[in-house]
């Protein structure tokens, strides 16, 4: 049980300001994901909560109480690092029991037995107590490592990229495993990752960090459908979102958008047009973001389509990444895995404006999108 609050945290390493006034609130029993590129300050926040790093300014609160000066060991947090090594010579039982046998937490064998069994059952490994780590599957090993952290019933569970060292395939499976186990944690958890799929899948809420600052806090859906700015939009989704300069034109009473100075005009949905008109005077430059999944292509010119050439076509299994060169600009779109095209052949793109994100080009901040309210309703 713990509610955690960070208030205006600042932290400097040498000349680098790692955290520049971070405000963050993690609710009791919430699974909170900190997400951002390398060097954004994710791990520093985690260490600040753990008490391993001391902020120069700002407060750390556990359930309202200021813990800045509380020793890490007295904070009752449990931390899983990227490489959760199990003791190879110890059974599952002894691995899970190990924290309770440390001099500090020394407990009676009877209590240990009881607690270990409870945690192991919860993790679905109760029948594997006598096995050695080498006799376990990867999933079972992960469960054992998590069990070892949970056995002390920490107030807060801190996880620093626990899946990052796994290969891509295993990572998918482990993420699903973690998600399936999540309901059983019942403990406030802060989870650090640089993988947007982990953030979207696991987080009750996701906090996105850039250069020591929180840039958005929201559900997985919110960061995907309504990223707070261009930085977040680029971070979430694969391939990276296409950002285009936009110019608005009113034609026969209808608002239309020109993308990257191309001659074609694409109609703007009316709900978007209404919001844009309100902001029209205050914004000098506009930008539109369209994800690769929302740019269908065709080899024949369409009513409104951008004309370009195939710059690259990469089949990567369940889909192909199609890169199209329009003028001097490159756009990436997602195509079927059996698509065939010679490089440099003519091709037409039809960005779907009903899925486009509209940004204030001066500041990079998100302004609006079609169906915004419906997409986030009740989620």
């Amino acid at each position, binding site marked *: 049980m713990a509610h955690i609050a960070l208030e205006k945290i600042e932290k400097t390493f040498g000349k680098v300001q790692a955290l520049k006034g971070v405000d963050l609130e993690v609710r009791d029993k919430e699974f909170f994901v900190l997400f951002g590129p390398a060097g954004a300050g994710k791990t520093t926040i985690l260490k600040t909560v753990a008490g391993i790093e001391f902020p120069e300014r700002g407060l750390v609160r556990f359930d309202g109480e200021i813990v800045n000066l509380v020793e890490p060991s007295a904070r009752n947090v449990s931390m899983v690092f990227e490489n959760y090594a199990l003791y190879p010579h110890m059974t599952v039982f002894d691995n899970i029991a190990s924290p309770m046998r440390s001099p500090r937490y020394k407990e009676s064998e009877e209590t240990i037995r009881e607690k270990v069994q409870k945690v192991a059952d919860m993790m*679905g490994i109760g029948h594997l107590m006598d096995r050695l780590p080498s006799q376990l599957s990867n999933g*079972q090993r992960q469960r054992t490592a998590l069990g070892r952290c949970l056995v002390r019933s920490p107030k807060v569970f801190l996880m620093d990229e626990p899946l990052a060292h796994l290969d891509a395939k295993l990572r998918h499976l482990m993420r699903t495993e973690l998600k399936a186990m999540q309901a059983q944690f019942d403990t406030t958890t802060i989870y650090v990752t640089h993988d947007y*799929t982990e953030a979207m899948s696991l987080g009750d809420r996701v906090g996105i960090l850039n250069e020591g600052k929180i840039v958005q806090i929201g559900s997985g859906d919110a960061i*995907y459908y309504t990223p707070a700015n261009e930085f977040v939009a680029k971070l979430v989704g694969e391939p990276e979102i296409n950002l285009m300069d936009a110019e608005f034109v009113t034609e026969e009473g209808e608002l239309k958008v020109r993308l990257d100075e191309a001659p074609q005009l694409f109609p703007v949905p009316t709900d978007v047009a209404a919001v844009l008109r309100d902001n029209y005077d205050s914004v000098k430059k506009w930008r539109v973001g369209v994800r690769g999944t929302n740019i269908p292509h065709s080899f024949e010119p369409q009513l409104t389509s951008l004309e370009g050439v195939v710059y690259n076509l990469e*089949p*990567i*299994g369940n889909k192909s990444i199609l890169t199209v060169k329009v003028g001097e600009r490159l756009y990436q779109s997602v195509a079927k895995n059996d698509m065939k095209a010679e*490089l440099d052949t003519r091709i037409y793109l039809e960005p779907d404006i009903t899925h486009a994100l509209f940004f204030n080009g001066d500041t990079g901040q998100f302004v609006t999108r079609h169906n915004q309210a419906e997409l986030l309703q009740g989620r």
Partner: protein
Amino acid sequence: MAQLILKNVYKRYENKKKSAQDYAVKDFSLHCEHGEFIGILGPSGCGKTTTLRMIAGLEEITDGAIFIGDRKVNDLHPKDRGIGLAFEDYALYPPLNVYENIAFNLRAQNLPADEIDRRVREIAPLMKVETLLDMKPAGLSGGQKQRVNIARALVRRPQVLLLDEPLSHLDGKMRQVLRTEIKRIHNKIKCTTVLVTHDQMEAMSLADRIAIMKDGQLQQFGTPLEVYDNPVNLFVAGFIGEPPMNLMKVTISGEGERFYFEFPRQGIRVRVPKKYSPVVREGMEVILGVRPTDIFITEPSEDSEVSVDVFENLGDEKRVSIDVGEEDFLTLTTEDERRYTKGERIGLIFHEEKTHIFDPVTEERILGVQK
């Protein structure tokens, strides 16, 4: 430009304990066409780099033959084989600038200065290093170093270009950019190319055909889509594709035209595609292989009724996973906006063409019978 042929090539390292593992490469044959881009793909220790080094002449061949063009090159010195080599580790000459690094091998061949200059200036813009010619390697980024490295290999006008994990040192974004460049240069100069990699995505996106290796032996040789859609064995099925194929042991139940895959967890079953009816029988154990994109959700029915255990919205796609017992999840992806909740009852159908079964002992694919 030339074709490259490997005929029953073996590599055996001496002074090792006697075992089947003695052979780093075993009975490896490969036929690369003129101008083709071949990927040799496999996990570490599968013999892929040894194979490349044998083609290059850096390793002796224990048995078999290698042809470049119409020449048997077994006993030729590396420099006489007409190959260009670019390793993962760029190893540029630090005291020389980019121009001299690229020109180095040509100078060693005693080509006239104006010919060298012409060739360097011809290759530099292709690899987008023309603005870097005066710089020393220390000032270059990883991506730029690898471009110079490949330029250095190409400037010799090799008959075969050999690339050993050229992208593994680079970060994600740079890797993607250079991957595109390599593909475009290959399209332009059509030099027969062999790429060695452990990254299936890299092999899929670059190669015309992929040779998949395991334990020194060729497993399958085909186009990216062939190896993706029709893996010949369990290893290839598991190695190719991301998210990975669902692979799990199941038991067959039913009879006649109506068979089911029975999963370890009680009551979870899915209809066996009709093409397998002639080859399966009640009680048979097989390993089922089906990709997340080839499972479809229907209304629950007597054919299949399961409950959703995990739903993940990953933005571009959504994933539904079903706990089928023994810690295995059957995962499928959907692209529509529909959301599922934990515990929701659904039915499943497997894609008729793209569902595979494998023999649990030999791990070879069991073919169905098309009617």
